[in-house]
Every structure is written in C-alpha cells, then in structure tokens.
C-alpha cells in the first residue's frame, strides 16, 4: 500500500538512498523569518537614517519647541480620555452581551461590533457635517470613542465567553457578593483582554490622521502630515515621527509586564459547562435603552449622515463612474497587499508554532514592533527611502503602496496565519506519513485543507484593513490614481459632502459585512481569548 515515491526504485539494502534528514534546526525557515523581520523593521531604520542625516543637533532643536509640548499635551490627553472611556464602554457592552439574559443579545452582539468596521475618518466626517459642536478636543473624544470602543469589546467578549464559569461559583460559595464578583472575578479574568484592547485603542489614536484633520484637532500625525506634504520640511516631520514612535513603543511596552502577571489558568478544560447568565430583571429596559443610544450614535449617525448628504447632493453621473474606478484600484492594491502580507507571515508563523525557541519568539515579537509605527510614519519612511536611495524611481508607484500596506498590516496577517498553522499540528502530518503518503501528498491532502480557511481569513482581514486605510494611501498613492478613500478625502476637503457621501457609504458597506463575519470566525478559534491584535 505504499505510494511509490520518486526515489523508491533502489533496493534499500544495497543503495545509498540517503533521504534528506528532517532538519533539526529549521535554517531555511529561520532565514526567511529573519528576512521578513528585516523588511518589517526597515521603515524604522530609514527613519533613524533620515534623522541622523539631518544631524542630532537639528533634530533636538526641532523637538525642543513649544509646538512639541502642545502636540504632546493634545495627543496624550486625548489618548488617556478615549482609552478610559473605551475600556468602560467596551467591558460593559461585552459583559451585557456575554454574561446576562439581555433580550435579543444576539442582535446586540452584532450591532455593537459593526462600528468597528467604519473607518474613523468616515465617522468624523459624518459627525462634523451635522454639528458644529463636534470639533476640537470634545469632538475628537466623541468620535474616537464611538469609532474604536469595539477594540475593547471584541477581546473582552471572547475572553468572557471562554472564561471558566466555575470560578464565579467558587467565589459565590465563599460568600462574596455579586458586585465584588463582577469586579474581582469577572473583570479579573478578563483583565488581560481589557488591557490588550486598551493598548490597541491607544495605538489607533496615536496613528489616526484623517479624523483629526476633519475635526481641526492638532496631534502629532496632523502636524507631521503638514510638515511633510505641505511645507516639505523633512527634518521636522522626521523629528516629530521619532517622538510618535517612542510614544507608541511606550504603550506597546507597557502591556508586556502587566500581561506576565497572573496569567489566567484554566483547569479541567474538557468539562465545558454552560454558563449561567445573570438576570437583569428590571434593569433590562434601561440597559437596552443605553445600548440603543450607543448604536444610534456609533452606527446610526455615520450611515444616516451619509444617506442624508447623498440625497441632498443629488448624485451626479460622474460619481457613479468614479466610484467604480476608485473601487477597482482599492481592490487591486488591497488584494496585492493582502497576498504579500499573508505570504510574509507564513514562515514567521511556522517557525513560531512548529519550532518554538527563545530566538524564534524574539523574532516573532520583533515583528509586532510594526504596531508602534503609525501608517503615516511607515509611509514617510518608505517614500524617503524611494527618493533618496532608489533614485526616486519607486516613489508613488503601486509597488511602493502595496509594500507599505503589507508592512503596516503584517501583525494582522500574522495573527490569522499563526492561528491557522496551529490548526495543523505536526502529529497529524506524521500520522499521514505513516499511512503511506509522500510529503507532497501530505501537504495537499492534510496541511492545506487544515490551514486554508485560516489563510483566507488572514487575507480578508488585511484586505479590509487596506481598503479602509487613508493616511499612508494619501502619501503613497500613484499620481493620477484615486482609491475610494483618497477620492472621498478629496471631495470632503472641498466640502463637497454630496459627492463624498456615496464613497463613505461604499466604504462602510464593503467593510462592515465581512468584518462581522471575520470577527465571528476569529472568536471561534481556540486559544484566542484575550490575545491582542
């Protein structure tokens, strides 16, 4: 029953049919992963090169300006306030949906998550177009909170769903009241997830550009954009970028020690019991009213404003054609970037899952440093590189934009690919070998069917992120080409709300539905509770 391989012809006893040894140290994988890490960290290297080119004195001089203090104050206070609000709102919504007998909680679970898919600059546009109050600091707090609280809700909900219900029972048997159980046991178990969500929220706020530009709120990103695109002041943009990267690194690093403390351990994983839900009783009505208000503000206003402006503007024929054209380019760049990012993530994920080692872990961690680099900074570093070292050849070509996307959303791809690789454990492949399948046959009949869906999910995740990306696209999009986001931006900048609105609605439509499907997919993966990204 053995399937005859290509080298099967020779009798074993006589020939020297030495088979390639299964590499004990996966040099090839390690080499590829190292190359991927180098590519991912190259923007950081360019940034430092650029800074050193300008001279330490110049950079220091630029940083020690009153402007920097203003930007720092603006950025930090917004980050702190929005992160705190998101932590509270996201945890409460997650608890209501996962742990209570809230009527219609399946529907709520969907409605509460959808705002995640609407790009921040679209939310910002919608709010500022209907109210003059929504601008500056208070506007930024409102818009960002409504746009990003699902980043806390999603991991916390996943964590609560997989949490051990017996812990609450144990606390009750020790005579602890319901409020203290919520604070000490329920929230305690979800602590890692809440923290992870907060880190993501803070990073998003540091990286956001479009929303703040619309609201007229000055942060590091808006100032960097102005210095680079309007004033062409490269040293200044570079210096401010460095400060921004340091801020992001601080936030990313702040999570590491907190995460190590008190890892949630689960005993007896086989006995999965159904969770008893807390009865809301009379509180059910007010809770539903609060959730309704949240959904109206976060989902109703953006969609409603879009529809309103579209009807008001009386869409001209030209818009229909340009939506198609812009949509085609968005799909083209996003698709290419998603494929590249998924491919790049494969060796890193294989190394981390199949050959766990301290070096491999360090390598995997280092790729997460990309999270600390806002899209704007990556775009600037890449365009600087293209201009300075590639002789301006690559600047504003599709390849450069695709490369920037792939680097920017690599962590997203890695999460998906890693989970899918973990779905195909080595022992299952060995079982297939022992049943007479050649390595190629194993790949085709076992490995690919197992990891295929996960790879597709990773691809879609990156695709969606690229399709709704604005900042890096504005910097790197090829001249004369418009994507959905840049075309929306151009109309919006000219206050052509009626023409911008269809683009906003198309972006919402292509992002919301698949995002929901993907969120459900990742929730169902085992071992994903409370993980970041």
């Amino acid at each position, binding site marked *: *029953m*053995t*399937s005859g*391989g290509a080298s*099967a012809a020779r009798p*074993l*006893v006589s020939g*020297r*049919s*030495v*088979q390639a*040894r*299964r590499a004990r140290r996966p040099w090839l994988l390690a080499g590829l992963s190292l190359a991927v890490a180098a590519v991912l960290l190259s923007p950081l290297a360019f940034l430092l090169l650029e800074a050193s080119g300008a001279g330490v004195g110049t950079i220091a001089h630029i940083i020690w300006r009153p402007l920097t203090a203003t930007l720092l104050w603006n950025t930090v206070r917004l980050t702190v306030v929005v992160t705190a609000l998101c932590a509270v709102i996201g945890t409460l919504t997650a608890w209501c949906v996962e742990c209570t007998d809230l009527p219609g909680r399946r529907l709520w679970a969907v409605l509460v998550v959808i705002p995640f898919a609407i790009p921040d600059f679209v939310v910002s546009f919608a709010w500022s177009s209907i109210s003059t109050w929504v601008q500056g600091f208070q506007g930024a707090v409102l818009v960002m909170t409504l746009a990003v609280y699902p980043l806390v809700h999603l991991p916390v909900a996943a964590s609560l769903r997989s949490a051990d219900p017996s812990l609450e029972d144990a606390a009750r048997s020790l005579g602890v009241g319901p409020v203290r159980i919520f604070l000490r046991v329920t929230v305690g178990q979800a602590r890692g997830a809440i923290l992870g969500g907060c880190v993501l929220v803070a990073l998003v706020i540091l990286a956001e550009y479009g929303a703040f530009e619309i609201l007229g709120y000055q942060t590091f990103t808006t100032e960097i954009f102005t210095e680079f695109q309007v004033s062409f002041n490269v040293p200044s943009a570079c210096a401010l970028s460095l400060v921004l990267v340091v801020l992001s690194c601080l936030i990313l690093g702040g999570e590491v020690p907190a995460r190590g403390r008190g890892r949630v351990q689960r005993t007896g994983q086989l006995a999965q019991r159904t969770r008893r839900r807390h009865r809301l009783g009379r509180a059910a009505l007010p809770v539903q009213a609060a959730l309704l208000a949240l959904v109206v503000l976060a989902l109703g206003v953006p969609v409603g404003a879009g529809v309103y402006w579209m009807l008001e503007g009386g869409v001209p024929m030209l818009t229909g054609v340009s939506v198609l054209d812009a949509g085609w380019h968005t799909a083209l760049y996003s698709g290419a970037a998603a494929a590249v990012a998924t491919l790049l993530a494969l060796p890193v994920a294989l190394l981390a899952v199949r050959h766990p080692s301290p070096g491999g872990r360090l390598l995997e961690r280092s790729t997460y440093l990309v999270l600390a680099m806002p899209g704007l900074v990556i775009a600037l570093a890449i365009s600087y590189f293209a201009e300075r070292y590639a002789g301006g050849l690559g600047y504003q070509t599709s390849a450069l934009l695709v490369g920037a996307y792939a680097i920017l959303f690599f962590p997203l791809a890695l999460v998906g690919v890693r989970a899918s690789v973990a*779905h195909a*454990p080595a*022992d*299952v492949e*060995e*079982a*297939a*070998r*022992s*049943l*007479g*399948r*050649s*390595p190629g*046959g194993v790949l085709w*009949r*076992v490995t690919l*069917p*197992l990891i295929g869906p996960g790879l597709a999910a990773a691809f879609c995740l990156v695709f969606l992120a690229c399709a709704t990306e604005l900042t890096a696209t504005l910097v790197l999009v090829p001249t004369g080409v418009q994507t959905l986001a840049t075309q929306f931006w151009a109309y919006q900048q000219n206050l052509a709300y009626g023409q911008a609105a269809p683009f906003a609605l198309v972006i919402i439509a292509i992002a919301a539905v698949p995002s929901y499907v993907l969120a459900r997919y990742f929730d169902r993966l085992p071992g994903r509770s409370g993980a970041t990204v």
Partner: protein
Amino acid sequence: MSATPGGVAVSDLHKSFGSHPVLRGVDLQVPEGAFAAVLGASGSGKTTLLRILAGFERPDRGVVAVGGVTLDDDHHHLPTERRRIGYVSQEGSLFPHLTVAGNVGFGLRRGRSHDAVVAHLLELVGLAGLARRYPHQLSGGQQQRVALARALAVRPRIVLLDEPFASLDAGLRASVRADVQSVVRRSGATVILVTHDQDEALSLADLVAVLRDGAIAQVGSPRDLYDTPRDPELAGFVGEANLIEATSDGSTAETRFGRLALRDGHHSAGQPLTVLVRPEQLRVTPAAEAAAGVAARVVETGFHGHDAVVRVAAEAGPPSPLLARVLGELRFEPGARVVLSVEGPVHSWPREVGG
C-alpha cells in the same frame, strides 16, 4: 538478527536531542506477530524509540531492521511513508477535516474495495454506525478506535501504540484496552506498545522490555519480569516489592521469616542476599489464629474491593513497613496484632555488605 525473521530488530540505537542523550544503545528484538510492550518511566526515551521505529526521527547511530530489511543505519533512512509501520499516538491525531470513514480510508487507494475495507474495519473496532461523524463528535475512546482502524487499514507489518490509553478515563480504559488487544491480535501484525503503566504492560503483552535511562534494562515474558527482575529497582518498577535481608544457605535463604526456598540458582553458603517478597506472598493472620511467624501490627489498610493492601510493621527487626495483599473480605483494623509468614519460593540477589 536472524533470530527474528519477520520481526523487529533494533541494535545499539543512540539518539540525542542537543546535548541531552535520550537513547544510549538500545537493543531489542521482537518476534513476528508478538505483542510487545516497552515499559518505562516518563523521560526514559520510550516515545523517542517509537518515533525512530516509525521513521519520524532518525537515530544518531544504530540499526533498525524489520523482517531482515534494514530501515535505518548509518547510510540508509527509509522515509516513514514507505515503512508500512502503523502508528497510533496518544491523542489519536485524527484528521479534523475528515469524517471517520475519511480518516480510516485515508491511506487506502481509491478502488472497488475501498468502501468495503473501511466498513469492515469500523465494524472490527465497534464503530460501524459512526462513519459519517467528524472527530470532534467522538469521545476519547472512540477517537482511539478510529486511529487504530486507520492504522490497520493499510495492512501494516508493525503497529506502534504510543500510550494510546493514557488519555482515557479509568472506566473506559479497560474496555478500549481489551478491544484494541483483540483487534490487533486478529490483524496478525507485530505490535509494540509503549507505556508507563506496568499493569497495562503486564496484562496486554507477551513480551515486556523495560527501558531505563535510555537502554533496555530487561526483556522477558510478563511472568519472568515480575518473578525474577534483574535488580531490586526493577522489582519495584514492575510491581510492589518487599525487599528483605537474608543470608544464603545454598538453595535456600535464611530470613527473619525463617528458611525460604530460592526461586532460581544457588548462592554460595553465607553470601548475604536481598530477597524479593511480593505483597501477595506475604500472608497475614490475626494473632489469635496463628501458630508461628513474625509478630507485627497493622499500620493501615487500603481497601480496593476485590482485595486490600495492608501495611504492617514487624515488632522486631527493621522498622520499615511491609506490604501485604489480602482478599477483600478479610478485615484488618489499624493497630491489630497479626502474624506474618511468606509463601512460595522467592527471588534473590547477592547483597553487598557495606563497611
């Protein structure tokens, strides 16, 4: 190697992971059609041995041959898929994306007999109705049976079982064990089971090899291994053991339980010995009924239903308690006065008397 024409012959097998040696010269012969068990504590290298036989790992040195054909030596390494060696892992390692029938038929060529073979195997392992289920819809015991059927489908010459019962709960384990044993015996394949459970090894196999520190410490029938272990440490590993000091008297030994017949061989008179008294050889009688023997007190009783293990401490002699196995209906309360005697011949080793 000529001793085992169709069986497995392993000689001088070495394997290290990094600087950590796992196997240091394993020699093992398993005759064709035998059910062999490799018994070892965790970390003794038993799974590594099995993975080398399956071809998942390559030995650093040594020879693996099956039926006189070399699979592994310094120059050759036959890849797993051409060995015709079935492997059932501890977790079963079923393909999660295939049904039970898909799993069992995985190694079979598509053809007229395909479905019939799958159906026959599922019937053999008692899962005829579950062909269309997916692995996650099965219990642990059912998953193991599917894994076994899948391995047997390709008619392997050898079936390797890597602690296949360890993840099952106690109630299930006995029935799955019995089923697996009868199924693999009917298949005619040579079976090698690795386990850390001496009960499992002794009750299932007709040949038991004890792996200790990366080498085979002793090979023999379960009976031999239990009755005449090579050293006191092995005696404790394959069962509970009372080790008692004695002095040789030719073919008998003088002990505090009187003169005991030695199971094997002679020692020169006056040679200090350690003798092995299995708990079931130690007879415990209430002091009131006994005629002669060693006076002792019951320390504690562990009741197991069919039998009970009684810990007793002799009133004179070394203070370490002795273990006796008695029938379950006998009652010994802690503190009760009893008399001990030894039944049957005992196994012995020369004892070095320290200065």
